[in-house]
């Protein structure tokens, strides 16, 4: 096989090289050398983005599994496999991210033996661990199909109802618990973001992002792998996203009103600017767009609306993890280049692994397993030139 140097591959190689150098700094010179975290700012970009956002971005898995297998929305069947793949990779990379952030990552297994049931972190860790196992089993049929192993597929099919229920239960628990992590900091987190309702918001936003990410990744992989887009699928997802965004917006407004900060959010302040960015990206732009039928039936516009929503919710979580503490701490936290570099490396690994999986496994062929008449020969060929995107 001849290796062709494309622009994306060059970018990928640069990111990986810088990431490896940063990893060297992290593990051979310590967290102090590799990050701008301090005693005043013990949690930085890696917790804010790699963990909080990473788990949220992987929510498409449980959303699609829930929609298709729990609520029997057959229409969405073609997106289940890519969504489960994204979730599985997302959680694996979340664990990789954790290995960078933890001060003593070689003791990560202590979670399993020195359990503290009062700790939200323990609950998150435990759920993430078990859910990653569940995702592994949900992902396995891809491998078995590829290898043409019939018997293990039958076994998995037998336990599938259990996997589905367990997967959604575990997701509900840890998606919301990520928000509960911050419940113990009422005196530190800015009132725009500290609310007893944090666990509900984290779950609600995970569902919305799950839908938006599925739209994003279907469109994106259709572009990259030259596949036909399933328009009815996107239309269904777009409609659901609009509902999910409205639910999120109403919950947020009710919460602002209930805690008496509704007046405060319109007064310009450092935090208000970040809140505005968040609210505009999360709600104003996508809700306005999706309210038009023209947008809901246009793959391109749906794609833009979902990107806006995803960026909005990412801003929300970064506000909670970073911006919301700056006034309390009294100074700004700006991540070091090595922190960005390692985060970028992890994201790039995600894209590369997704590309490889699509190339070697029947991720987009679940339909053709049912009806054999349309084998997608072109998929493999196209991916070849894009692996590593």
């Amino acid at each position, binding site marked *: 096989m001849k290796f062709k140097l494309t622009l994306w591959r060059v970018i990928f190689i640069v990111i990986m090289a810088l990431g490896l150098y940063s990893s060297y700094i992290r593990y051979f010179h310590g967290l102090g050398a590799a990050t701008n975290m301090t005693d005043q700012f013990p949690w930085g970009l890696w917790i804010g983005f790699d963990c909080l956002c990473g788990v949220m971005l992987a929510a498409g898995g449980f959303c699609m599994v829930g929609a298709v297998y729990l609520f029997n929305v057959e229409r969405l069947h073609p997106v289940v496999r890519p969504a489960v793949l994204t979730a599985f990779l997302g959680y694996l990379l979340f664990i990789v991210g954790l290995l960078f952030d933890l001060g003593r990552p070689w003791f990560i297994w202590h*979670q399993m033996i020195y359990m503290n049931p009062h700790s939200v972190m323990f609950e998150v860790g435990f759920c993430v661990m078990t859910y990653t196992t569940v995702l592994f089993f949900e992902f396995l049929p891809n491998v078995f199909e590829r290898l043409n192993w019939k018997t293990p597929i039958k076994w998995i099919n037998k336990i599938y109802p259990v996997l589905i229920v367990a997967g959604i239960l575990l997701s509900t628990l840890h998606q919301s618990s990520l928000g509960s992590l911050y419940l113990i*900091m009422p005196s530190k987190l800015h009132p725009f973001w500290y609310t007893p309702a944090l666990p509900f918001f984290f779950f609600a936003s995970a569902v919305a992002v799950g839908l938006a990410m599925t739209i994003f990744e279907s469109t994106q992989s259709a572009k990259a792998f030259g596949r036909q887009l399933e328009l009815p699928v996107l239309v269904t997802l777009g409609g659901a996203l609009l509902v999910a965004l409205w639910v999120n917006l109403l919950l947020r407004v009710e919460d602002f009103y209930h805690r008496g900060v509704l007046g405060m959010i319109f007064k310009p302040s450092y935090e208000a600017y970040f809140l505005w960015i968040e609210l505009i990206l999360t709600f104003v732009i996508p809700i306005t767009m999706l309210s038009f039928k023209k947008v809901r039936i246009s793959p391109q516009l749906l794609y833009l609306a979902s990107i806006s929503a995803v960026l909005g919710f990412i801003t929300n979580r970064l506000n909670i993890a970073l911006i919301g503490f700056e006034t309390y701490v009294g100074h700004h936290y700006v991540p070091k280049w090595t922190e960005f570099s390692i985060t970028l490396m992890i994201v790039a690994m995600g894209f590369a692994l997704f590309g490889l999986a699509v190339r070697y496994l029947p991720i987009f062929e679940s339909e053709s397993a049912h009806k054999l008449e349309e084998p997608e020969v072109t998929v493999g060929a196209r991916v070849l030139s894009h692996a590593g995107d």
Partner: protein
Amino acid sequence: MSKAILYDATMCIGCKQCEGACAQQNKLPYDDTVAAESVQSAHKYTVVLTKNDKFMRRLCMHCEKPACASVCPVGALHKTANAPVVYDVWKCIGCRYCMVACPFNQPKYEWQSLNPRIRKCIMCPDRLAAGKQTACAEICPTGATKFGERDDLINEAKLRIQQNPSNYLPHIYGLEEVGGTSVLIISNAKVEDYGYPSSAKIGDTPMPEYTGRVMERIPDFIPLWTLVLGGIYWVSHRRDEVAEAEAESKNGGRR
């Protein structure tokens, strides 16, 4: 019974001998450079601050219901019966949740280390076990830092304020804050001026309760939610089975 430290800022002369004794007890370096440092860090568990010629000591408050212990996923921090909140380094995975959760920002980190530890005042548990007082209390020349039974110290603090009301602010910091702490502070300057969180800001609710309210629901939530999810699965798939059976009978049993 539960022990405590009473720090009376009005009696403090700023000699910093407590800092030195603490460093010696915990085998930390201490010289003029460290003495000049006015922030707590991984190598300085306690610090005597000066502002407007008044002194104030900072150290771990040893909460009755510590946030750090409740958030630690591996239980590396725990409150002992006689007061100290201690740290088992071999359990620690380095998540730093204790640092973020502590309302007093006491846990510090060895950022430069390749195998970093959480560092904070642990109230000399070995000395306490041997029936001795903490190193800082023992060395204090004026009695500004006093070690004893928590109840006795509370009474003493109240008495001091009562007998000399013009010399003190009428408040014992640590008596009610976050559900009570094993370090009590009386002074004639506001503790907020020295980096302590104000009483109004942290409140009297023990920090673990904020998460406890959610966490305690989980054991009920798991079976309930499983039933709901299982139920939805059953109903939506039962509908398919019924539809299939009906379609079959419409065909008159012919396949």
